[in-house]
């Protein structure tokens, strides 16, 4: 899942590019895994990575979502979230993450740690997001540091196998139930390149009572290549929310379900890729939500 190249990997860059030197014995399973992931990501860039949470359109951003897109929640809340992602039926390619968020007045903050892959090939990540949000809008900065687990990791300016990405995002209430957002999670990249090249994402969310529609366009990072588009429609019924998503390049769909009981929330989404199989993401969270965000 990682493109081990310095600084500026091409969008959807193959994992094989600039692989870190590693003992030959360890390479065989790694190469198989790498090839599968490279194929997956080369053909289908994923919008989120280390903190990829199942997100229903219209729901308040979870701590992981805040870390991933730098879009802070409108209302302050103390929340914790644990999540796991199984990527494209690839054995061993699993991301586990824990994220926390808090808010005070207009200030918002989140932090999290993540681990992807096995001890020989995987990597660890830590993220921090800080921002402000209020009634009509919000904005934040995010930073993620990663470190490869492989002992022979690529030596770069930040240390062996280490990488940094810094970005930001903002949203505003455009009226009529529409929220517009922009997220550029990788404005600055240093050291080992991130697993995925993520470009500027411009999104629109339209909430109509229990129905929510989210549309997004993600530019290729660096401008080269094709953009992809995402549409997700969610329907809420009491504590349950179900959503359907569709994306292009290549065309694929996803189905998600979320449920909330008091402060406890669970969610899951399955995304089906026409060639590579399914990605499953699950999350469980605890949140002390403000009155405005409580389900009816």
């Amino acid at each position, binding site marked *: 899942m990682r493109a081990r190249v310095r*600084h500026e990997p091409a969008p959807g860059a193959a994992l094989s590019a600039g692989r870190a030197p590693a003992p030959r014995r360890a390479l065989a399973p790694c190469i198989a895994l790498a090839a599968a992931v490279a194929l997956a990501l080369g053909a289908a860039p994923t919008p989120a990575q280390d903190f990829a949470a199942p997100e229903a359109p219209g729901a308040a951003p979870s701590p992981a979502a805040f870390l991933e897109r730098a879009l802070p929640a409108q209302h302050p809340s103390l929340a914790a979230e644990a999540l796991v992602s199984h990527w494209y039926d690839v054995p061993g390619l699993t991301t586990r993450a824990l994220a926390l968020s808090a808010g005070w007045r207009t200030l918002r903050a989140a932090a999290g740690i993540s681990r992807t892959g096995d001890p020989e090939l995987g990597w660890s990540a830590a993220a921090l997001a800080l921002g402000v949000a209020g009634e009509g*809008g919000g904005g934040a900065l995010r930073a993620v540091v990663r470190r490869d687990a492989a002992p022979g990791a690529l030596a770069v300016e930040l240390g062996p196998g280490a990488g940094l990405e810094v970005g930001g995002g903002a949203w505003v209430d*455009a009226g009529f139930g529409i929220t*517009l957002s922009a997220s550029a999670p990788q404005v600055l990249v240093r050291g080992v390149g991130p697993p995925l090249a993520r470009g500027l994402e*411009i999104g629109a969310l339209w909430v109509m009572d229990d129905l929510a529609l989210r549309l997004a*366009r993600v*530019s290729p*990072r660096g401008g*080269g290549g094709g953009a992809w588009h995402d549409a997700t429609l969610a329907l809420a019924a009491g504590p349950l929310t179900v959503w359907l998503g569709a994306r292009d390049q290549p065309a694929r769909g996803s189905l998600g379900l979320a449920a909330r009981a008091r402060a406890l929330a669970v969610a899951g989404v399955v995304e089906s890729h026409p060639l590579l199989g399914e990605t499953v993401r699950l999350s469980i969270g605890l949140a002390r939500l403000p009155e405005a965000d409580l389900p009816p």
Partner: protein
Amino acid sequence: MTLAAALALAGLAPPARGGDAPLPVPDSTALEPPPEAPEGEDFEIERADSLADESLEIGLAATGRPGEAPRARRRVRYRDGELSAQVREGAGDPLAGATLDTRAAGGTLRIGRLAPRWGRGLVLGSAGAPWSRAALDRGDGARFRGRAGDGAWLRLGGGPGVEALAARFGRRDLGGVRLAARGASVGLVGARGGEHQWSLALARRGGEGEIAVDRSGRWRAEAGAVRRLGRAALAGQARGGIDGFRSLAEPERSGPAEAAAVSLDSQQGRAALRAIGALWRFRPGLAGTRGALEVSLRFAQHGNFALGLEEQQGARRIPSSARAAPSRLRRGIWSEWRGGPPGFLLALRHEAWGEDRLARHAVRVVSAARLEARGPFGASLGVAHTVYHARRGESLYLAEAESDRLVLRALAGDGERTRLEVRAPLGGGTSRAALDLASAAGKHPRLRWTLDWTRRAGARRSGRAP
């Protein structure tokens, strides 16, 4: 676009961009440099903000890149009832120079940088763009102070107005005289060696026209009119003449020999419609058309939304080399939204140009987001991120607003640009700092910084820079 289609669109169609369009917002790609500016290079132009009477403005600025020596700029402006003067200096500053305006012989005398405009601009002060009604940087009232030449320009009022100028335009020393009365004017511009051009212009409420003739008998004529139709303003202009006619003062702004353009501006409540249709021909085999339609909606508390469609074909300027590739059909679509709560603005823009319908087979794609947050005491923070793709041979310019100028930053290829701007009061004035991070495909990210401090003071009034 065919000629018939252009004419049909022209029936609907004012400039969605260029000539009479509003000033571009930061990070906009709506402005292009004038024809005399080298294509693919940064272009800087002075903003025509006015200084209050009895006031003085001082500005200090520096810009640079890591590993390079900073380049400093300085400027001083002063204005009172009788005198207005400014001096700019700085290594490599394209706006460096001085201008002095003062009363003389019952009129006004300007010495230094000149950007005059006579009539429709056929001899002095043309817009250059075939679809533009007026240049953005020529003549009184222009939104930018251009630089057509350097010299002296005397204007006397009264009954018949008299103008006289002696200046160096490009590499040519020119002298000119113009007499004007009751909307009619006749002017003569001459150069050493006997070259000269006559300008005969007539301006009436709602319309104006000009005929220009040079020593060889080559001529050019242009007329334009604006009519109100309810809440809409319909404008049209037409030009004709001999291919070989070139303005002595600004030959590269001579524009096409033949052109026709129609534009419409309509405001209906919170909605506005702007459209333009234009076709032109520089010479046989070198022609072009352009049609554009822009619809914008203004919401009282929720910002503005605009959507535009445009089609261009052919040459927009006389190519610098005979081997230059002919311009192909370009179809563009763009949308822009800006708004947010008080003190917090988010602007989103997406623009795509292609060779086919709905901008398919993209030759140029730009996505941009900008966030502005205002703090106390006039402090503000702005962050902009732009992702672009421009096929080889395509020009792309990104507008960057600085305290005293507008910079059209030339971009090419694939890349991203992030700009951070901070503004805060300092030392009785306003300080600005900007940091640009540009990443282009296959190149290391490049950093550029700019610092600027401006202070205005006056005997009667004082205030911060805009």
